[in-house]
């Protein structure tokens, strides 16, 4: 419970960052003709856990005590949603690896994944999770740096008119094998609850939308399916951009 509570507080701070208080990484479109790529090594990413977040939680208007109440409320909801995912045997990072590999292979790319998808040693990263500098990689055409910003369910507010939607944000960068050239950088948002102005936006439609957390929790495995679709859509869009 303490770990979830701490994560909820961090999540609240992160939401502040996501809603425009921090500059996003500068976008770099991919010049496919100038940098033909076939084999890509995927770099280790940060540990990623699913979250449940309400952007304008009523508690946040009532100072520190209200903020702590909001964080505790969020932590409780996250615990329940993570239990639902465990029941469905679903893990976001592993599923993303599976879907990105599939979509990239469909486009003729081959991905080389690290032995551990999650970083074993903390990398020097910017505020959106992308590395500030890169080493070199042998026998590949490019290195891919990816990082989830948010994965889970998010709501814009506390009313039925601001439902929980499956939400994914992700930063992606492709660099040269020697780590010196920026081939591609962009940010993706599936269901743009956090209003990220410069992200590539994907709309999730009206399926898997829940008026309140009780509805989300009651949906059980269907809510996990919503997150599956979100992760798959982001993976497909990344592959399309490269």
């Amino acid at each position, binding site marked *: 419970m303490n770990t979830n509570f701490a994560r909820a507080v961090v999540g609240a701070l992160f939401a502040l960052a996501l809603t425009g208080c921090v500059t996003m990484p500068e976008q770099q479109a991919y010049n496919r*003709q100038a940098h033909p790529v076939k084999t890509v090594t995927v770099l280790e990413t940060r540990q990623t856990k699913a979250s449940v977040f309400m952007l304008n939680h009523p508690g946040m208007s009532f100072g520190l005590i209200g903020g702590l109440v909001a964080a505790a409320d969020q932590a409780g909801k996250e615990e329940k949603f993570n239990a639902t995912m465990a029941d469905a045997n679903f893990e976001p990072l592993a599923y993303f690896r599976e879907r990105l590999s599939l979509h990239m292979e469909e486009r003729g790319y081959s991905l080389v994944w690290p032995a551990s998808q999650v970083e074993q040693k903390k990398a020097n990263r910017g505020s959106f999770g*992308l590395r500030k500098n890169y080493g070199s990689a042998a026998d590949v055409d490019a290195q891919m740096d990816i990082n989830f910003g948010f994965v889970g369910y998010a709501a814009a*507010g506390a009313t039925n008119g601001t439902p929980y939607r499956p939400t994914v944000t992700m930063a992606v960068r492709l660099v040269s094998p020697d780590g010196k050239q920026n081939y591609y*950088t962009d940010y993706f948002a599936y269901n743009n609850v956090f*209003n990220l102005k410069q992200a590539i936006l994907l709309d999730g439609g009206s399926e898997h939308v829940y008026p309140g957390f009780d509805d989300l929790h009651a949906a059980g495995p269907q809510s996990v399916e919503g997150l599956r679709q979100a992760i798959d859509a982001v993976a497909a869009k990344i592959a*399309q951009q490269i």
Partner: protein
Amino acid sequence: MRGPALLCCASVLALAGCVTPYQAKLPSADRDCAPSLEAVPQIPLPFSTTREQAAAVREAEFADIAQCIAGAEGKAHLALYALDQVVPPAQISISVQLSPGGTFAASAELLDAQFQSLRRYTFDQFVRRSDEYSLHVFLNAGEPVPAFLVLSPDSSQVGKHDVTASASTHTTTVPVGTGMFYFNMGAEAVVSRPLLEGGRLKVVARRQGSAAFSSD
């Protein structure tokens, strides 16, 4: 004295919602059509060598710059940009502006000097970002150099809708004693914008650049 008064009245009218909302112009069906691409008037695409020049490029209505061409499949409308001022390595950024009054569902094609197709991009290759869809195409040294850029409606997308849910925060201020209490409430709006054969667009050609890695 008159000028500021007129400006003030115009501002009030705009704020009061008396200004007509934007409605995308559609290409006229009555226009005389060119028999071939060679006969279509060309739009010279300037090459921006500085950020300021690129930022100064203005939007255009597709209907205002499009020409009609009569092909085997009937009439079509397109804008034909000449790229002789664009020097590789260059990047051409094409953006269409989203609006409830209509968004141009564009397709783009690069042609060589003989009007043969080099590369083609459909509307689903444009990315949705903020209040626009955009596409970047690269012209690299050492490759067959495109001579023309053709923009035309993507018929597979015309008639569809861009639907997005966007969140916002509303703050209510309540005086409490000698101080103020601020209460934030979230709101969500689902907006549907039609994809049409016309709308606002911008085409900017500039030198290729490379974004730096994060410095924060």
